[in-house]
């Protein structure tokens, strides 16, 4: 087991697992409690549109993904804030259009051969130092913000209307959260890919929810679970030579099933 640590890609992968788990625990908890899961899904798929556009225009793929999902996420953020009755439908449309944009742009880009598969399914084994430093920055920023504004985040997540009656700028918090989700999702795509990112964002918090007594507790427990799943998945992937992203999600799903089974007798 220890010998795999002598490979640099493995050390990077483990570091990526740690950082993405911190981000997932924080962002995942907020989107699950705030019911923004579909928005996160929309952002992830919109990112593919950005990848396609970037390939077509010949700019860095990561930057394309980031800006395109930021742009669409702000539109989706506006839709969710207004609580239009069909917000989820509108997000579903943006989700699909984002993805289709990507596919068509790739079609139109002649001789394009870069690893698009790594965007779909992730490649934690090939994360670069730049990926790691970006993840690290976002993780640290997220944790600091969460410490500083914990009570505001709590009341915003729990009861938006009440927060407004206390004179709290809910709109600002909402958009900041959306931007943060956007950046985080694009970074975590690196680990499990855009198709599977939703699972990594939602499974740990939905397990943690049943065992937590506070928002902070749920964030911490989600992060720990996320790390556990990521490392186990990585080990499974290494041992049986399977795709890392899918292995991580399968381990997480097994954990989810186990927690539901353990919870059954209590209910």
């Amino acid at each position: 087991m220890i010998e795999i640590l002598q490979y640099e890609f493995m050390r990077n992968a483990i570091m990526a697992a740690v950082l993405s788990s911190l981000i997932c625990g924080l962002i995942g908890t907020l989107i699950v409690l705030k019911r923004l899961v579909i928005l996160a899904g929309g952002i992830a798929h919109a990112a593919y549109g950005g990848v396609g556009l970037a390939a077509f225009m010949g700019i860095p793929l990561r930057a394309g993904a980031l800006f395109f999902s930021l742009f669409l996420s702000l539109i989706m953020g506006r839709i969710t804030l207004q609580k239009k009755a069909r917000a989820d439908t509108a997000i579903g449309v943006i989700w699909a259009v984002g993805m289709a944009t990507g596919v068509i742009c790739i079609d139109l880009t002649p001789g394009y051969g870069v690893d698009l598969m790594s965007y779909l399914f992730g490649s934690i084994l090939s994360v670069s130092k730049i990926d790691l430093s970006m993840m690290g920055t976002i993780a640290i920023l997220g944790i600091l913000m969460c410490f500083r504004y914990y009570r505001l985040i709590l009341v915003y997540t729990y009861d938006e209307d009440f927060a407004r009656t206390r004179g709290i700028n809910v709109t600002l918090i909402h958009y900041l959260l959306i931007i943060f989700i956007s950046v985080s999702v694009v970074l975590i795509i690196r680990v499990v890919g855009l198709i599977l990112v939703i699972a990594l964002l939602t499974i740990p918090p939905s397990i943690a929810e049943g065992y937590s007594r506070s928002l902070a507790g749920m964030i911490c427990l989600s992060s720990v679970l996320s790390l556990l799943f990521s490392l186990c998945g990585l080990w499974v992937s290494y041992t049986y030579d399977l795709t890392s992203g899918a292995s991580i999600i399968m381990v997480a799903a097994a954990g989810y099933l186990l927690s539901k089974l353990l919870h059954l007798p209590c209910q």
Partner: protein
Amino acid sequence: MKMDIVMENVSFSYGNKTILEDVSLHIPEREFLAVIGPNGGGKTTLLKLILGLLKPDKGQISILGKVPEKAVHRLGYVPQDTSNYVQFPITVMDTVLMGCLGEKYSISPTMKHRLQAINSLEKVGILDLKNELTGSLSQGQRQRVFIARALTTDPEILLLDEPTSSVDLDTQKAFYDTLLELNSRMTIVIVSHDLFAVTSHATAVACVNRKICYHSEGEIKPEMLELAYGTCPVELIAHGIPHRVLGVHGEREKLSHD
């Protein structure tokens, strides 16, 4: 008499759907106002306009002599209980401590805030539940948590949105007794689709169904029922109205069944 809430010719619509039309309402200090009416009639909208959560399309609203946004920190708001509150991991104490938040706030609650929260929990009689999870409580208990949270803001007006829907009768009675006690210190506006439960305690009743019908005694007037349930031929025999108040069955049945 000092007026706490003044609404003049207020209209509000969501898109093309008019929710409130030309509504005027004057609520004096220490009133216990019951807002009744059918679902979708605009009760919650009225409350949100008072709280400044929604802006009227037309008309003026003045709360404690100011525009709603400037007065909102002096109002206590008790929201409708929804399933979202049930799943959230939070203790009763932490829920009530949200009442200490304002434009200025400390990173963590101070000792003074904790005492304030304990005091509010005591007032609504659930101090012994302070370490429980809010989501694990019964609906009646959870409503008390939300009232305690609103009291922690030290409000001059307390606004409650459907606080007793699907709560049993005994709980309901205890709940209204608590409100009556609070009424000696603050104005209370309570929204309910439960016609008669509220009216035995209220000092005024307003029926909202796009238009408003206000009566300054805690009594339901036939015209309110007409406004609220005009197209539904219900026979009502209740206190205050010991006779058939609406059309006889059959007369308007066509209307209500199409």
